[in-house]
Every structure is written in C-alpha cells, then in structure tokens.
C-alpha cells in the first residue's frame, strides 16, 4: 500500500526529513501500526516517534487518533501538539 508521510516541526527536525513516499508492508493498516513500523527504523526514528512522546497525527489533513485506518494513497502526518495563535 503506497502512502505519503509528512513530518512537521520538532519531529521533522529530529528526523531530518519532511516527507516521504512509502510502500507499507501488508498488515499495517492504522496510524499506530505505521508509527511502530517507523520506530523500528531505529536511531532518530525510535527516539522521535517513541511511544512515550506526545504526538498528534492527521490523515488526509484531518486530526486522527492512533486507531484510525490508513488507505492506499492517504497522506499521513506526524507532529507535536500545536502551538499557534
């Protein structure tokens, strides 16, 4: 399943990457699953996306919970809690 993944703010800085196209292995169908998959890259990925770290996620530009499903072609984003205004 091909998806696009975006990273913002402190997450982007820690990973040294702002976006990537990914072809997900079968069996990964939720945000939580994707996060675990990315953590498994180790190093900065394990650290920036660690379970204990408070992150927000969006699917197709709507805020989404960890259990939210991912479909082919989706745009998934990882970022810290927002601080605008």
């Amino acid at each position, binding site marked *: 399943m091909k998806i696009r993944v*975006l990273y*913002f*703010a*402190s997450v982007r800085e820690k990973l040294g990457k702002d976006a990537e196209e990914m072809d997900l292995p079968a069996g990964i169908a939720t945000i939580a699953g994707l996060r675990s998959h990315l953590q498994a890259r180790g190093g900065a990925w394990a650290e920036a996306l660690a379970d204990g770290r408070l992150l*927000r996620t*969006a699917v197709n*530009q*709507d*805020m989404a919970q960890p259990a939210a499903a991912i479909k082919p072609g989706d745009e998934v*984003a990882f*970022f*810290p*809690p*927002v*601080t*605008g*205004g």
Partner: protein
Amino acid sequence: MRISVQREDFDLGAEVKAISGNPRIGAIASFVGLVRDVPMTLEHYPGMTERAIGKIVEEAKTRWQVMDCTVIHRYGTLKPNDQIVLVAVASGHRGDAFAACEFIMDYLKTRAPFWKKEQTPEGARWVEAKDVDDEAAERWRGFTQSRRIS
C-alpha cells in the same frame, strides 16, 4: 468568510471594514494576537491549516449567529510586537460576536497545525503546548446556547 494563512502583515481596520457591509450586522468582535518577548518562526501544515480553521469557523456557525468572519494567521519569521493572528466576527449582536470570536481563537490554539519556534538568547527552542490552552478549548464543550444581548 475569509481564511488566510500568509507571511504578510494585516490591517485590523481594513479587515473589520471588509466584513461590516451588511446592514443587519450590529456587532463586530475582533482579536489580534501579537508576538510576545522574543523573535520566533512559525511553521504550519499547508492545506491542513486552512482546512482546520475552516472547520472551526463552521463549528462556530452552528453555535452562534456568525454573519461574516475573517481569520488571518501569519507564518514565517516574526519579531516581538508583530501581529500573528486576527479573528474578526460579525453578528447581529455583541453576545454572539464576542462568544464566537473567543471560541474560534481557543479552538485555533489547539486544533490548527501551527508550531512556534522561539529564538531565545540561549538558542532556538520549540514552544511547548500548554495545558491551559487545552482547558480553554475544553470549556466550550456542550456550550451551544446562543447569547442574544442587544
């Protein structure tokens, strides 16, 4: 309704005037947020930002009479005292205008994908999200009663 995410500064007077044309409008409440203390850089998620603000405005319209509304949020590099954000709400009466303006601002702070990075004397640091902002947004939960104060 106008939502703009932009680098450029804005003019409060011009923005208020732009939403005051309808003769049924009796009140415009506006809020302008400024950069406090230190220079900062604002990053956002293009596309989602406009979408998230649009949803907040739509939510406000289900709760109060919102006859027109402008939300402008800047990004990029800003210095102390620069304007960051404008929310202006036009309504028939002040109760709805005040409430909708504050609601939009409170929700924007917790739901619109912006991130501030401050340039402090000790170096650059990302601003941490504040619990008080979540609490400010949370207090609107279930608050749907329209206030009609003329």
